[in-house]
């Protein structure tokens, strides 16, 4: 996966034959860049638009003759956006809800995956099917009745309401079970001889060895639930419990296109935490989505 921009040093005998081929490769790559550069710019343009608009003056947005770049950088759009709604509270709520789901999921999938990977018990296959089947019942099939359930529990408009439907994860259990099965049983046997019980083995042998899988699953969970819109929208109705995406949606609704500069500044604030993490840990993010796939 590492990109090697230049040909690696070859012995003189080979390089005679390789020279025309490397030219061919260069030509082919040149052609590819010619296609990929415009496509990448097209893909990046909405982000560029968010950034540029967030720094414009309010009237510039509606003026077709104003040009693409802001005349003066209006940094005050940012404090204006942050003061119009309690973004600090939204941020704390987002962290609590996403963190809560992450911790709960990692706990439930670790316990269940260990049972499926290393223990024998009646009904194992049936129960495993029940876990896997959850993937086929996404939120659109359950949100309505889950809302009724959460309402009956008196949990509406609270942080736990945003967490409870996502505590168990069939897919996470499946992924982690696969990883646990790759761990050689000799390691567990050795730990058992040293006097470790099941929980000791799980904690000291299995979990350290499946760290990449845990991280991959964790990243996908965080991205999914940090950005979640539908469910938090349905179960919250006051400022104190709203998350960042819900707050942003409300701001958009109340502004209704009147103040794009402030709205885009708020958008930058909302999208930047994940985008920054992505830029810093790009490799980890890419690997997670490449190999863990779905959520």
């Amino acid at each position, binding site marked *: 996966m590492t990109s090697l921009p230049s040909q690696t040093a070859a012995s003189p005998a080979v390089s005679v034959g390789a020279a025309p081929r490397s030219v061919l490769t260069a030509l082919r790559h040149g052609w590819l860049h010619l296609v990929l550069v415009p496509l990448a710019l097209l893909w990046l343009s909405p982000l560029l638009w968010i950034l540029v608009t967030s720094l414009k003056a309010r009237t510039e947005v509606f003026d077709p003759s104003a040009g693409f770049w802001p005349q003066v950088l209006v940094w005050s759009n940012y404090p204006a956006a942050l003061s119009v709604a309690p973004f600090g509270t939204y941020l704390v709520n987002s962290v609590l809800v996403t963190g809560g789901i992450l911790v709960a999921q990692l706990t439930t*999938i670790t316990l269940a995956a260990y049972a499926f990977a290393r223990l024998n018990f009646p009904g194992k296959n049936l129960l495993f099917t029940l876990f896997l089947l959850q993937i086929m019942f996404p939120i659109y099939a359950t949100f309505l009745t889950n809302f009724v359930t959460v309402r009956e529990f008196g949990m509406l408009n609270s942080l736990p309401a945003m967490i409870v439907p996502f505590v168990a994860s069939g897919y996470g259990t499946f992924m982690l079970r696969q990883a646990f099965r790759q761990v050689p049983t000799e390691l567990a046997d050795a730990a058992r001889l040293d006097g470790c019980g099941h929980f000791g083995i799980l904690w000291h042998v299995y979990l350290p060895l499946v760290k990449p899988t845990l991280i991959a699953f964790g990243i996908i969970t965080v991205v999914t639930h940090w950005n979640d819109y539908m469910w938090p929208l349905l179960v919250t109705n006051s400022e104190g419990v709203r998350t960042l995406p819900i707050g*942003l949606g409300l701001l958009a609704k109340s502004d209704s296109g009147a103040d794009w500069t402030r709205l885009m500044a708020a958008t930058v604030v909302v999208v930047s935490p994940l985008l920054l993490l992505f830029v810093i840990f790009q490799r980890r993010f890419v690997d997670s989505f490449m190999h863990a796939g779905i959520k």
Partner: protein
Amino acid sequence: MVVGATLQARMREAGLAYLLLLPSLLFLAAFTYWPILRSLWFSFHDVVLGDSKIIWLGLENYQRLWEDRLFWKAFGNTAFYTIITIPVAITCALLMAVALDSKLRGMAIYRSAFFYPVMIPSVAAGMVWVFLYSASYGPINQGLRFIGMPDTAWLYDSTWALPAIMVMSVWKYSGYFMLILLAALKLVPSDLYEAARLDGVSAFDRLIHITLPLISPTLYFVVIIGLLHSYQIFDYVYVMTHGGPADATNVLTFYIYQNGFQYQDIGYASTLANVLLLFVGGLIAVIATVFGRRVHYLGR
């Protein structure tokens, strides 16, 4: 005695296993299986949100659905969105993945450029595209004006509103599918390409006859993921059009929301949810029977 001891050990093992599964099972039962069953139950009743009285209706809700023109419209929109958006996004993703599979300079930059929309909350993405699509000052129309095209009020035009949301979805998800396909492409042995190239097979034929068959399990997987993710159109419809204009972008998830939360008619909304589940399940079954048999597995 020995038999008794092993039996006891086995029972202890089973007991521990059930204990470990308990937390997951509790939440799976409460928030996945119970709602599915309950939704089925609700669909045969008149259920009003916040009212404990439930009246048996038999198949009345299903009959109502059959005659509900708005349901058929929402169903058609959902089917149109799903059946066009997923293949288009996967085709885009495949071309991106094939282009990035060669050891290209700046590969990481391209990859990030295509992938970053996945990291953006759907509500933020929807809002930005409302701006991009704006009739008078939106950059898309400004660009079209530049080449002499007339203005279109994209999201306020009943012909263009749904396709406009679909274009946005392709932008949002292609990068996600691209990464999964890229992982599959890495596993295709390069000597296969080399041999075909030496035999004079063109790049296009290599893609159709070598690459596609070899990554078909992943393509199949990506189609299923696409289907299961397509419910997210709710977020875009909610933020960008609220189902309008004239229900041109009303899709089933949004129609369920309208019935359940705006009209408080949980019984009918449950009926709609069951039909949506059946539709997506049916599509997956069709894809599994049509394409599942043609999928090649390399050395597995």
